[in-house]
């Protein structure tokens, strides 16, 4: 720095700070308010929602959706969609199931193979999107159906059924099961290790987004791809990395559901990709990319988990869940639209 710089720093006025206004402008603010409202409502309306037993149930429900919503949120901030994310959770679990029960492969090896295949499919998604310039919505819709078909056809071809049974009898099952499916009893509530995974994934994603170079690039490629290219952001690496992250998260969720129940259905995860997107959008992600937060997506999933279980606790018809989700989504999109026109519309 030159002397003028130092003089300028010494004499400059203090940077203005408006903590409350800045807090309100955060993308996850809307989701936080909504989560608190939902929590208070069910705590008052039902007697067992705000107990340890109740919390264990809705946290477990939110955790797997939360892991995926956070990964999908990163991808959406980067300006892309992944419709194959839901079916991928079943796909990875089926790989482990088939390799161990039918081919007798070591379960640890099978889990690693499953991860490798997932990352490969994610990389392929990203590569096709970047090379062809086609919308990721279409490309991953294709992958979604290809995988959904494989899940059913191959599982049936090899095992003769549409689900994997007998996982618990596989050698070394007990050595790996606690990693993904462990639970502890606190008071009257059962808390699964998946909740910890969810917190961990959210924390890492938040750190990457806000404090790592990769996070800067994610916001940039989603916000203005051409500008990013011009200033030297590695756009190919960033986008392919995002698709691989989503696939990796799907693998984690696949393992969690496999080792918690020791069984997997061939249609696991189908239809859930939209719930991940809803959680991410409710958490403040823009559909057009360049804006959003991992904590917001985690809160979106928390809302989903609480409403899903809250409706059960309140003994309402659970079919209302979808209507509620749809309404939440519309509200969130309207809120986001307002934020965007204020922040990005320019003058």
């Amino acid at each position, binding site marked *: 720095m030159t*002397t*003028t710089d130092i003089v300028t720093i010494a004499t400059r006025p203090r940077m203005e700070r408006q903590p409350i206004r800045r807090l309100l402008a955060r993308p996850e603010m809307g989701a936080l308010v909504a989560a608190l409202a939902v929590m208070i409502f069910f705590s008052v309306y039902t007697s067992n929602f705000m107990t340890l037993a109740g919390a264990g149930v809705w946290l477990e429900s939110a955790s797997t959706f939360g892991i995926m919503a956070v990964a999908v949120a990163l991808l959406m901030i980067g300006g892309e969609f992944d419709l194959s994310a839901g079916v991928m959770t079943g796909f990875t679990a089926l790989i482990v199931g088939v390799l161990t029960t039918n081919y007798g492969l070591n379960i640890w090896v099978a889990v690693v193979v499953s991860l490798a295949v997932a990352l490969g499919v994610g990389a392929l998604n990203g590569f096709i999107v970047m090379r062809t310039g086609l919308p990721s919505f279409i490309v991953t819709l294709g992958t979604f159906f290809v995988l959904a078909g494989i899940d059913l056809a191959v599982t049936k071809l090899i095992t003769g059924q549409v689900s994997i049974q007998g996982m618990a009898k596989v050698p070394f099952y007990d050595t790996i099961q606690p990693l993904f499916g462990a639970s502890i009893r606190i008071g009257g509530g059962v808390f699964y290790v998946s909740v910890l995974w969810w917190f961990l994934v959210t924390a890492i994603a938040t750190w990457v987004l806000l*404090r790592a*170079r990769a996070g*800067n690039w994610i916001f940039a490629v989603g916000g203005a791809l*051409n*500008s990013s290219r011009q200033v030297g952001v590695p756009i190919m690496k960033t986008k392919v990395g995002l698709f691989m992250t989503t696939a990796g998260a799907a693998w984690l969720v696949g393992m969690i559901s496999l080792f918690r129940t020791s069984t997997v259905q061939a249609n696991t995860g189908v239809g859930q990709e939209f719930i991940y997107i809803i959680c991410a959008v409710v958490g403040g992600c*823009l559909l057009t990319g*360049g804006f959003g937060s991992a904590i917001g997506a985690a809160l979106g999933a928390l809302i989903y988990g609480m409403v899903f279980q809250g409706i059960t606790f309140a003994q309402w018809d659970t079919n209302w869940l979808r209507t509620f989700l749809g309404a939440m989504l519309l509200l969130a999109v309207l809120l986001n639209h307002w934020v965007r026109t204020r922040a990005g519309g*320019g003058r």
Partner: protein
Amino acid sequence: MSQITKTHDPIVAVKNIGKRYGAINALAGVTTEVRAGEVTCVLGDNGAGKSTFIKMLAGAHTPSEGEMLLDGEPVTFSSPRAALDAGIATVYQDLAVVPLMPVWRNFFLGSELTKGAGPFRRLDVKRMKTITYTELDNMGIDLRDVDQPIGTLSGGERQCVAIARAVYFGARVLILDEPTAALGVKQSGVVLRYIARARDRGLGVVFITHNPHHAYPVGDRFLLLNRGTSLGDYAKADITLGELTSLMAGGAELDSLAHELERSMGADSPVVKELEREAEALPEAAREELVPPTAS
């Protein structure tokens, strides 16, 4: 200011350069120079060859004739990156900013400062914010908050952030592609002030514009282009704003326009008088060049 380094040798000099795309002659016979602490304005109407000229300077195109000198040495840029490494930075019209990202993140995008190592390598947020604030302040932009999305800034301010960014990352020559084209009168004034600032900090500035009223106040040297040829390269002392304007409008065309209007509006019409006066004001040499062969 302490950074002023006026030298007598140009940083970049071009001699009779031109560009041919197959049979089409996009630009020919252009000679000018860029000196530290001076503004070289490139003026011309649409299709005059301004873009071709800056693309050659910026390394996006290689000239098909003539030579380019960097610090007196002949040079050929194989890519924009090569030009950038030589200290020639270009601020294009779209500015290469991400509207929803904070000013400081935009400032360092693609060249982020980090601290720590391995998986704990992280952004040095505090330092980047301080540098952004300082650099903008040095350009005379007082942003209260470098955390606001760059999209909330006015067009002129955004332009200035892009200029400040190029200056900070070591540009010696700054090429500005029509920075005032999309701006209103007031915002244009703001940008012109920052061009002067960059000049005062010792940069050689290449300012592309089609508005002589923007070019004349800040410019030290004026390169005029018309339909792929140079109408001349003037130092400020050799040309007045009136002459510049007339040259831009095309002296001979202005003459014939005056005659045409004379018939319909009468010789005493103030518009015609004005045009005639402007045509008179042209430098003699430039006028002769402009007259088409059939007319002489």
